[in-house]
């Protein structure tokens, strides 16, 4: 609340060069400074505090924590479907255009527009629409964005993920692993610069989970996509990701829980 756009930009320009990403140079994709989300449910208060989270383009970032630590809440805020309670800065910069969006100043429509074009999202159980075929599910973000020329690229993507034989099936007829791969294909189909994944391997066995993780990483690296992945399984991401963030949970009393995001070095 206390931050102003000018203050944010002033601080932004020297930082972005100083804290350049290890893989790709360019402006920070996410800049979260002093962000607070407070939730109250049935008298219980949960607070998520993010002192600083800055993500550069092309990075693979893991958000690791046990359930109840607020990692999904963070992911929702990053996905622009949940507004922070307060923030000194909360901005998303589109690498292709360099345009910076300040979430605290945006209305629902504007957030929906950014989400539509710039974000891909993989949900725990896929989040596929049961009434659309696999192909229609994957093509849906393109259709919503009015993109009609992605067919060949999408076919490639599908082939890489090994689901080209499933294209005309409905999601209900797929296995858990296939469903997650379809969700990944859908998240990447319209070539968003940022992809968010919420426990994408939680519903599959350990080996499939690793396969999916590797395919995901490979694809996002090739496509220069910034990938933020939430998981409770630290072993899944250890040694694979560029950066890892963890949560420090403090129970103030029976009704009040506080969680703080910290980067693990």
């Amino acid at each position, binding site marked *: 609340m206390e931050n102003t756009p000018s203050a944010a930009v002033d601080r932004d320009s020297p930082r972005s060069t100083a804290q350049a990403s290890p893989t790709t140079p360019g402006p920070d994709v996410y800049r979260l400074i002093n962000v607070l989300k407070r939730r109250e449910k049935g008298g219980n208060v949960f607070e998520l505090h993010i002192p600083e989270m800055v993500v550069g383009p092309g990075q693979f970032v893991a958000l690791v924590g046990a359930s109840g630590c607020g990692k999904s809440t963070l992911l929702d805020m990053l996905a622009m479907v949940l507004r922070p309670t307060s923030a000194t800065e909360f901005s998303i910069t589109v690498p292709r255009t360099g345009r910076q969006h300040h979430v605290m100043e945006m209305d629902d*429509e504007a957030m929906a527009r950014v989400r539509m074009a710039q974000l891909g999202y993989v949900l725990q159980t896929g989040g596929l629409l049961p009434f659309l075929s696999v192909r229609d599910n994957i093509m849906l973000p393109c259709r919503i964005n009015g993109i009609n020329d992605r067919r060949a690229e999408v076919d490639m993507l599908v082939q890489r993920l090994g689901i080209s034989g499933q294209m005309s099936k409905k999601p209900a007829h797929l296995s858990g692993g296939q469903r997650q791969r379809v969700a990944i294909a859908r998240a990447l189909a319209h070539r968003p610069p940022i992809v968010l994944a919420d426990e994408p391997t939680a519903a599959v066995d350990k080996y499939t989970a690793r396969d999916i993780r590797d395919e995901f990483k490979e694809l996002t690296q090739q496509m220069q996509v910034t990938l933020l992945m939430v998981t409770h399984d630290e072993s899944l991401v250890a040694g694979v990701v560029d950066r890892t963030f963890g949560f420090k949970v403090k129970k103030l009393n029976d009704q009040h829980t506080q969680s703080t995001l910290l980067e693990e070095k």
Partner: protein
Amino acid sequence: MAETPQKPHRSGGIVFGLARSDLLHEWILTTCLVMAIAAVLSPLLLLFGLKFGTIETLRHRLIMDPRNREIRPMVSKSFTRQWFDQMRQRHDVAFIVPTTRQISSTVDVQAHGRGPKKALDIIPTMDGDPLIRENGAPIPGEGQCVLSAAAAQELGVKTGDTVLAWAKRIKGRRYQSASTRLRVAGVLNPRASMRKAMYVRLDFLEAVEAYKDGRAVPRFGWSGTTALAYPVYSGLVVVVPQKLTKLEENMLVINTGFSKVVEPGEDLDKKIGFHLGRHMQIYLLTTRKPVGLESVGAVRGRLRGKGATLLPLAGPLAAELLGPGGTKVADLKVVGLSVHPGMAADLKLSPLPPWGRGQGSMAKLLTIMLPQGLKVPPGPLSLKLTRGKQTLSFPVQATEERGPAGDVAYLPSRLAGILNLFQHRNISFDPTGKEFILARRGYAGFRMYAATIDDVPKLKQFLEGPGQALRVHTEASRIRDVVELNTYLTLIFWLIAVVGIVGGLASLIASLYASVERKKKEMAVLRLLGLSGGKLFRFPIYQGIIIAGGGYLVAMAFFQLLAYTINTLFAAHLQKGESFCELPWPYALASLAATIAIAVLAASLAAWRATRIEPAEALRDE
């Protein structure tokens, strides 16, 4: 604000496509919803269909039933043509036809002109008679009749057959009868009348009445006497050689029918329409209302031995001279003038018509002396007089001699006197007998129908009021029953309709609301993919429209099937243009619009709730 690299287009189309795909995917559930809505709509449509069909038909029959609207006089009285014209002008009178006296309202009828004679009531009718029109028969024309169901059964005839109608009268001690053929133009529905009756044109009734009164009806070849028109005069010119005493003058107006003796002024010629020499004594007898020949005779009696000449005055009257084929030749003022040729010279009378005293048969008197200079086409001429809507025309022969130039034409005095009578009474010309026949003065009664049953009490009040002082019969108690039944029917319909509509509304809202609630998860995912709240809002609305529209179509199909069945089953009880179950298309469209509107409303309610939930929360609900 935030830009987008590619502007999304036709997202409405995408949302509609998604809504449709979802419904197709869950086709079993969709079918259930459609059926649920159809189940609510079908009986409602049927109810409305019956309302517009059966109830409307019954209501209309009850309210418009001519029997309930009939007003009959309970007393015999003479009603003039003017009275009927006045009554026809009233907007609360749907139909009125004069009737003749009760005694002349039966005839004996033979089917096909042979076999036993059956006595039937004859009832007058004319164009617009609701009793005939609403009971499946045409209005009878000239030489036609319409029979009540009982009469047709009695005679064993049907539409298209011919019957022979006999009028009967007593002459001296013997019965006389005369007949004419009538074609049966139609048979009334049994509910129209229980009587054995024959509906005919009014002039047929008049003919029967005339025959019973001993008069002839040349049209049907029925013999008898004829009521001839007689001349009436509006004044009398008396010319005497010597001045009359005051007493003698007074004698001329006492009990003669004339009212005043006037000294002729300078304008006498103008007043009487011809010229008289002033060398003799001239008196002008005036009158308040036209007098007949007997008045002239009375004056003649008073002046016996005084060498008086009497010139009865008729005219000037406006008339049209018609040439061959009825083309108008000239507007004339006609004046009656007949005088003995010997007297004419003494009177220094001008002009001098060639017909002298103008006596003999009327055929010889149909002559006219036209003004000098009037161009007349060759061929037969006729003269036409008009009074209000009534006209009188007859052939005339122009004399060789011509009167003075101008627009005054001269007729024999007796003919002009008859035309004078036409100013007050209806006269027709009988071309076969070459006579002027006096038409009837008025009618003994009437058949009247009020415009609606609501007008009946008012009309009764008017007719029984001080101006008319009639006693009339109406179906007051039946009208009360009908009005009551109508009120109850309408009330019952609306009670059922309101319950049905409220139930339908509740069911529609519940079904659609439930279906949107179930779609919360999918809607959250769509929102996550970047569909804005506004666009997402349309998802359940499109689904509501599709489901409601589908439900309506199914309900309409059911309705059409049922309506067809009902109408076919009861076809025998329907009249032309009636239907037991029908929904006029504007109402069908309105009900579709209402269904869709309710669907949109219900879906909006649910959608509003669904889109208010943060997509994140919806996703984590599981």
